[in-house]
C-alpha cells in the first residue's frame, strides 16, 4: 500500500536524505566545474548526472528536490542569473527523473547482467535524458543571454556528451555496487581480485599518467587498457567491468588534466571530450561483454538445474519399476515360470540401461557445475575389481572376463566413482567387441603408481578419433554398417573422475584388432 507508506514517511529522515544527497551533488558539481567547462557552464566531467540517476533508481523519485537545489545553487554560485540557474536546475532534475523512469518502465535490472539492460541504458535512457538536460540547460543560458547563439551548438554538444558519459559509467557502477556481494569469497578469487586491481592500476598509470615513460613524448598506447578490461569483464561480470572502467576513468581524467595522457593535443576541454568518447566506447564494450558472459553463466546454471531436476523426476518412477520387476521376478522364480522370467530379465536390463543413462547425465551436469563431490577413503582395488568383474560377467555369456595381476595395496579415493570408471570401461569393451570372446583386466604397479587396463579384441578405434575419445559428447561414427548407441559422455565422465584422483587415462587401439583403455592412479602416502 504505497499511500500508507507515503503518509507514514518520516519527514526528518526524508529531509536528512535530501540534504545529504544535495551536499554530495553540490560538491561533485563544483569539482566538475573546476575541471574545464565550455562557456563556463557545460563541463566535461559531470559526476552529478550519473550520481543523480543512480540515486533516483535506488531511493525513489522523492529525492528530486536534492537535485534541483544542488544544480540551482552550484550554477547560481558559478555566476548564472537566477532564472537561468532555475532553468538549469529543472533540466538536470528532469534528466535524472526521465532516465530513471525509462529504466524502471522497461524493468531494468540493476545488476546489468543482461544485454537488454545494457542496451536499454546505452541506446535509450542515457542519450534521451542527457538530451533533455543539455537542451533545457543551453536554452536557459541562451535565453538568459549568458551565451551567444553561435556558441550554443558547441556548448550543447559538450553538455550532452559530458552528461552521457557520467550516466554511462557512474550510474551502472553505483547500481552494481548497491547490493554488497553476498557469500564468502574464496581465497583464490580474492587473490585474483588483488592481482586484477594491481593490473588495472599499473596499466592506467602507464597509459594515462606516463608511468615508466623516459622522455617527454606521449605514446599512443591506449589499446593497453583492453587486457585488464577483458579480464575484469570475463571473470567478474558487470560489477568487475564497471569497477575497472571507473578506476581507469579517474586515472584518465587526472592524467589528461595534468597533460600526461595521450589525449593532450589541444585545449583541456577538447582533450576531455576526446577522452570521454574513448572511455564511453570502452565502457559500452566492456559492459556488453560482461552482460553476455553473465547471461551465458545464468543459462548454464539453469541448464544444470533443469538436468538435475529432470534426472530426479525420471529416477523416481524408475525406482518403482525396478522394484516391482524384481518382486515379480521373485514370484515367478518361486513358480518356476521360465518364459516369464526371461521377459522380466529383458525388462530389467533395459531399466538398468535407462538408469545408467540418467545417472551419467546427472554426473555430467554436476561435473560441469563443479559440484561433483569425491569421497576420500581407502579402496581395496583388488576386491573392487573382483566384485565388478563378477557382476559384469553375468551380463555377457559370450565374453570371458579375466583379471591379470594384482594391486596388492590400497589406494585412497572414491570407491563408488572408481567402480563407475571400471564398469564403464568393461561395459564398453563388451559393447565394442561383439565377435570377440575375451576381455582382460590388467593390473600393474610400480612403487608409487597403479595402472589398470581393460583390453578388448573388438572393432578398435580409428587413429584419428583416439585423441578425441575422452571429449564430451564425442562418439565414433563408423558410418559403414552400424553405429553404437550412447550419448558419448561415459568416457568423458570416467576421464574426469580419474583426473580428479590425480591420475591419467589413455587409450591404445588398432582398428579391427581391439582397444586397451588404461588409467593410472598414485598410491598416496601408504606404503
Amino acid at each position: 500500500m504505497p499511500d500508507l507508506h507515503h503518509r507514514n514517511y518520516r519527514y526528518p529522515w526524508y529531509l536528512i536524505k535530501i540534504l545529504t544527497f544535495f551536499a554530495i551533488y553540490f560538491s561533485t558539481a563544483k569539482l566538475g566545474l573546476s575541471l574545464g567547462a565550455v562557456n563556463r557552464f557545460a563541463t566535461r566531467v559531470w559526476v552529478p548526472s550519473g550520481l543523480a540517476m543512480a540515486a533516483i533508481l535506488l531511493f525513489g523519485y522523492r529525492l528530486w528536490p536534492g537535485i534541483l537545489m544542488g544544480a540551482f545553487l552550484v550554477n547560481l554560485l558559478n555566476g548564472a542569473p537566477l532564472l537561468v540557474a532555475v532553468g538549469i536546475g529543472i533540466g538536470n532534475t528532469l534528466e535524472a527523473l526521465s532516465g530513471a523512469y525509462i529504466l524502471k518502465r522497461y524493468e531494468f535490472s540493476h545488476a546489468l547482467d543482461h544485454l537488454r539492460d545494457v542496451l536499454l541504458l546505452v541506446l535509450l535512457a542515457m542519450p534521451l535524458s542527457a538530451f533533455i538536460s543539455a537542451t533545457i540547460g543551453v536554452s536557459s543560458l541562451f535565453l538568459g543571454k549568458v551565451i551567444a547563439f553561435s556558441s550554443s551548438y558547441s556548448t550543447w554538444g559538450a553538455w550532452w556528451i559530458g552528461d552521457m558519459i557520467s550516466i554511462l559509467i557512474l550510474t551502472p557502477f553505483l547500481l552494481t555496487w548497491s547490493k554488497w556481494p553476498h557469500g564468502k569469497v574464496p581465497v583464490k578469487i580474492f587473490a585474483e581480485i588483488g592481482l586484477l586491481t594491481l593490473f588495472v592500476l599499473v596499466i592506467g598509470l602507464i597509459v594515462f599518467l606516463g608511468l615508466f615513460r623516459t622522455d617527454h613524448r606521449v605514446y599512443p598506447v591506449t589499446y593497453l587498457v583492453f587486457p585488464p578490461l577483458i579480464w575484469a569483464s570475463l571473470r567478474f561480470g558487470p560489477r568487475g567491468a564497471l569497477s575497472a572502467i571507473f578506476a581507469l576513468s579517474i586515472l584518465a581524467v587526472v592524467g589528461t588534466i595534468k597533460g600526461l595522457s595521450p589525449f593532450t593535443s589541444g585545449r583541456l576541454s577538447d582533450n576531455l571530450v576526446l577522452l570521454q568518447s574513448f572511455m564511453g566506447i570502452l565502457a559500452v564494450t566492456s559492459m556488453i561483454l560482461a552482460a553476455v558472459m553473465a547471461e551465458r553463466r545464468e543459462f548454464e546454471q539453469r541448464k544444470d538445474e533443469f538436468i538435475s531436476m529432470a534426472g530426479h523426476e525420471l529416477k523416481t518412477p524408475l525406482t518403482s519399476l525396478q522394484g516391482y520387476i524384481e518382486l515379480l521376478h521373485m514370484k515367478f522364480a518361486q513358480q518356476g515360470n521360465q518364459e516369464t522370467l526371461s521377459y522380466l530379465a529383458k525388462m530389467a536390463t533395459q531399466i538398468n540401461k535407462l538408469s545408467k543413462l540418467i545417472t551419467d547425465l546427472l554426473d555430467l551436469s554436476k561435473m560441469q557445475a563443479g559440484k561433483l563431490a569425491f569421497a576420500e577413503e581407502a579402496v581395496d582395488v583388488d576386491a573392487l575389481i573382483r566384485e565388478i568383474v563378477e557382476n559384469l560377467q553375468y551380463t555377457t555369456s559370450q565374453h570371458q572376463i579375466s583379471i591379470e595381476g594384482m594391486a596388492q595395496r590400497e589406494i585412497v579415493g572414491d570407491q563408488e566413482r572408481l567402480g563407475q570408471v571400471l564398469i564403464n570401461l568393461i561395459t564398453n569393451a563388451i559393447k565394442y567387441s561383439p565377435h570377440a570372446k575375451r576381455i582382460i583386466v590388467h593390473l600393474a604397479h610400480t612403487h608409487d603408481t597403479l595402472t589398470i587396463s581393460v583390453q578388448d579384441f573388438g572393432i578398435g578405434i580409428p587413429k584419428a578419433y583416439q585423441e578425441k575419445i575422452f571429449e564430451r559428447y564425442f562418439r565414433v561414427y563408423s558410418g559403414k554398417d552400424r553405429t553404437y548407441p550412447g550419448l558419448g559422455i561415459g568416457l568423458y565422465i570416467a576421464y574426469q573422475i580419474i583426473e580428479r584422483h590425480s591420475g591419467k587415462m589413455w587409450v591404445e587401439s588398432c582398428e579391427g584388432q581391439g582397444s586397451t583403455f588404461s588409467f593410472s592412479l598414485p598410491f598416496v602416502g601408504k606404503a
Partner: protein
Amino acid sequence: MKKILVVDDDADILDMMQLILKGEGYEVQTSLNGACFQQMYSELPDLIILDILLSGADGREICQQVKSREETRHIPVILFSAHFSARDITATIGADAFLPKPFHLVELINLVKRYL
C-alpha cells in the same frame, strides 16, 4: 517381529517397500510425509528408511530430530534418494547409511539386514 518405518512422498514406492520388506518378514509402517514420526513414541521402530526430499516435511530435519532425541537416537536411519549427491549429507545429518534410487532388492535387503 522387527518394525521398520518407511517415509517417502511417492505412494507407489511406499507400497513397493512394504511388499519387499514384509516379504522378508518385517513389520512395516509407511508414511508419506513423516507425520507419523510424532506418533511413533508409543511404539518406536527398529529402523527408519527415509527419503530426503519430501513434499512438505524435509527428510533431513526428520533425521536430525531422530538423532537428537535421547529416546530415538539409537534407531538406525537409512537415507534413500534419487539425488546421488544426498550421499554427501548422510554423515552430516547423522544418518547411518545411504541407498541411491533406483536400487536392487538385494541391495535394500542386505542393507536392512546389516542394521537389524
